């Protein structure tokens, strides 16, 4: 559960309280930095995360977002979707259209942090670029190594990363410990690490923009 003064659990809030707030459904990979921003700006927002590992089964994302959004729309006057397209290839947009909601712009959270043009430049420079965010650096063992089975089958390294030439860490809030973990992640893939300091401005702009947009009423 996320802890934050403004984005904490909604159970203690009265319906009248909630009526003035925004429910933000966030991908688990974005939920923590989103909640930190909500705190920093004292936005009237409650963050409702969904599991980050849905990214590896992106056909499930739209359905889960829709179910949560439908339930939140019964309580919140305004609900927003803290997901980019995220490999749903348009399915999330259909949900947004159906429920009259907005999502973060872009294809994935890397676009949000680095900006689509900059990200594309990394891929153009080296198509074999593998991108990390602070979230992925912290959770690398679970979200990457374990999910891809590299912990159990290290022999699959080349099947996955044989064509990769570097890891680019989009560092939002770098500190020495995170840097060490990013280096460790790159080392475990046998790839050199490039650190790109993106900060959190991209996410801040994206979420701020999302929340101030006029949001249509709850559909009948």
């Amino acid at each position, binding site marked *: 559960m996320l802890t934050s003064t403004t984005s904490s659990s909604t159970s203690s809030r009265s319906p009248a309280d909630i009526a003035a707030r925004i429910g933000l459904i966030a991908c688990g990979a974005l939920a923590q930095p989103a909640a930190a921003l909500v705190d920093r700006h004292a936005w009237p927002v409650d963050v409702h995360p969904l599991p980050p590992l849905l990214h590896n*089964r992106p056909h499930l994302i739209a359905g889960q977002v829709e179910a949560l959004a439908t339930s939140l729309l019964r309580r919140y006057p305004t609900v927003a979707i803290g997901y980019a397209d995220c490999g749903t290839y348009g399915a999330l947009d259909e949900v947004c259209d159906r429920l009259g909601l907005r999502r973060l712009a872009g294809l994935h959270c890397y676009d949000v942090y680095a900006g689509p043009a900059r990200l*594309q430049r990394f891929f153009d420079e080296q198509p074999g670029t593998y991108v990390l965010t602070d979230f992925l650096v912290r959770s690398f063992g679970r979200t990457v190594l374990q999910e891809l089975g590299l912990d159990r089958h290290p022999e699959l390294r080349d*099947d996955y990363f044989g064509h990769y030439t570097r890891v680019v860490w989009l560092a939002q809030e770098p500190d020495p410990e995170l840097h060490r973990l990013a280096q460790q992640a790159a080392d475990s893939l046998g790839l050199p690490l490039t650190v790109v300091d993106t900060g959190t401005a991209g996410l801040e702009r994206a979420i701020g923009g999302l929340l101030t947009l006029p949001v249509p009423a709850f559909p009948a």
Partner: protein
Amino acid sequence: MTPDEILQGLYDQTLVGNAPAVLDLTHTGLDLGMEPQSLLFDALIPSLEEVGARFERGDFFVPEMLIAGRAMAGAMEVLRPLLAETGVQTIGTFVMGTVKGDVHDIGKNLVNIMLEGAGFNVIDLGVQVAPEKFIEAINEHQPDIVGFSAFLTTTMPMFKANINALQKAGLRDSVIVMVGGAPVTQEYADAVGADGYASDASACVKRAKDLLTKRRSLVSA
């Protein structure tokens, strides 16, 4: 071991990706005088099809698919020369590659294994294949089918670029174009002017055979 036990063992061990056991069983089966085609069509291919079905259902994820694919690829190393020796005709030549700018290739590699198992002569151009490389390979190998694989929204437009390049080179009518990859749909395939699309490896084999039969009946008509 009886031939039935060999086939069952091959099926089961491929399913769990036990490459050494699959290799052993392949050798044992051959030593017993079993036909290479039988090992392939009665055990290995059905097993990999089941792996694909489990992936679709969400029971398997990518690593399980990969280890199963590797186990089958190991057996294919042994069977390939034997299949060639026994005079099994290749049913067609398939040039395959992941498009320029994209390095996802797991799906493509699985498709290749299944195509090869089904009797296609597969020429894999690898990843990040530029349009001119496809043209070169088509000129060199005169394939029946060329397959473009893409996994990113940003690289899917290369299908159209490749097809334009084929047109420019005067090759569009001499080769069947198939496209696929996680983000690709039948509508997208139609929109870029591909001849065929398939959502997974088994479907690709089926569609490739259908397209080939249709093309050949047209040519001989």
